[in-house]
């Protein structure tokens, strides 16, 4: 457990945005995540990849913020992909019934390939 202070980094790759939440995903950092995605959606991006490789601890309030992003993307017929999730994170999403509302890939490049080619 590293528990670094939370921060969000992001970059663009073609017509997709990739978001990197780092550290402890709680209410505050969840909000930052929503804001970060909101900026891309505002610019017309409909494909978002969230790479969780640097997220260590989470809580349910932080996770619930993801609902906001899922919903926003749904409204514009967009796609959300989650990648590099730890087993804990995957199980947690499963327990909360989130999995069916997102696409999950082992690593970021898999998600990007899918988004480009439409193939798994």
């Amino acid at each position, binding site marked *: 457990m590293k528990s670094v202070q939370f921060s969000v980094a992001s970059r663009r790759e073609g017509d997709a945005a990739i978001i990197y939440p780092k550290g402890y995903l709680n209410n505050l950092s969840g909000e930052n995540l929503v804001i970060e995605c909101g900026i891309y959606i505002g610019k017309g991006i409909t494909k978002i990849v969230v790479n969780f490789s640097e997220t260590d601890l989470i*809580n349910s309030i932080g996770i619930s913020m993801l609902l906001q992003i899922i919903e926003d993307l749904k409204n514009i017929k967009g796609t959300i992909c989650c990648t590099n999730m730890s087993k804990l994170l995957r199980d947690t999403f499963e327990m909360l*019934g989130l999995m069916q509302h997102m696409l999950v890939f082992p690593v970021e490049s898999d998600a990007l390939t899918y988004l480009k080619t439409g193939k798994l």
Partner: protein
Amino acid sequence: MPFNAIPAEDFLNREPELNYLKGLSKLKANALGGDVFLDGARGMGKTELQKQLYRILFWENNVVPFYYSFKTANLKGTYFAQDYFTGFVRQYISFVKKDPSIANNVAEPLQRLMPTISSLGLYWLIDCIEDFQGHVNKNDFYWQLVAAISAPVMAAQKMGKPVIVMLDDFDEAAHLYESSLGDAHGLISLFGESMRNRLCPHVITGSAGALEPIFTDHSLIGMTERMRLGPLPEDLAIALFRAHLTNLKITCAPGVQLEFLDLLRGNPFYIKNLAKAAWKMQKNVITEKDLIECYSFEVSDGETAFYWASVFSRYVKNPAQSKAMLKLLMHAIENGGIEDGKRLSMVSGLGEAETETLLNALTTSGIMRVKDAVLHDFIHCLYMKEIEGRNVSDAREKIEAKYIQEREESCFELVIPMSSNAELVVAKAVEQIGKNINLDAEFLNYLQLALIEVCINAIEHSGSYEKKVFLKFITRPDKLEIIVENSGRPFSLESIKEVPVEEKMRLGMKRGWGYKLVHKIMDSVKVERVNDRTRVILTKNIDNGS
């Protein structure tokens, strides 16, 4: 009986106190003090200290010791006066002749001692005895008492040799009466004169709760200082227990640490009783587990139980009251004290007035205040028998189970402020605790999540002014138990509704998921309300097979 003190070498850890008490008469002569109230938990050795002092002074011959125990005294004034007076005369002659048998022979009437007194040339004492007899013959209640109580002062003045007056369980003197109990208040204040005398230091014991009002009411407090008898340190407690075992020809199994003795908190009375219990139970070689078994015997049927039962019996008049008292005490133990108010009569099952009287008696006795695990176990045991109707062996088993389990458990406590990210401290702590007990690394991640959820729930929703979350981690070989407590708004598991994700998205309701996770992660989740606190108990069974 002042002469049945234990051998000086067996009397542990009270040297400073003894030395101080030996010098009391000098202090008093110089008006620097000289009256001491010996304060200490029951069985801590107050009486024994007086007896040790007695023996030393007796043989040193510089100060005359006089010991009187109110515990067994008849408190009818005239009986008391007679007993106190003859007790003093016997002990005085005994001192002068250096013959303990005179003091010990309580059956011998004073008349028979007259020749001895004459031969010692103590003519003033003969006058004194005749004066006292005169008051008795005239049936003069008041003067009998005064003459008896002032006998030590009289002797000190006549001989110029200080007399140390040791009044054991002196609070009982508050109940001295003339012809029926409670008919004469304040007779205890007759001791004031004697206590103020420069030649007579007093060493007093008794329940602090009962003595404090006496001291303040009767301005006896002026020169009285409090000497506190604390517990024996851990190593000496063990040494004392081993010495008792040796006397009883019992040995300890190899490697036995006697850790269980910690429970007795260095109380010599409990230590002695436990050793005797081992003897009664015919143990030859004792193991840690035997100790627990002997202990459960002690608190259910042993001398410790007998002792506390007799203390209790002083405060109740009938079986109904005794049951009520048990319920109140059990209630106090379970709730860490007793709150005021009408609810208590619901607990006791008696009327409000009667409950109040009982409570007052218990408060004065000091029983309510003591944090004494042995007393608590005695109460618990009696409660199981009298109120729950369990049989003795069942009750004893319960007590034993508690300690057998406790031996194998370790416990960590943590308090966090209700501030942001404080839950991460908990996550960090539980990570290490988990490692200590070899918890599966993957499960540890889930456990962290569960705890974070419980803490956040407390922090976000309790509205507590105290702004603290109290956590306790108890690890046992077969399970991990985590207790999370906080003050503030009550909370129950029923209040958390299951809302599907779709619904949540639609309603924009994004909270209340936490406990869903907690339930999935832990084997059991319980929520209780204890006074103004919410207590969440999480347990996870540990599978030792894998």
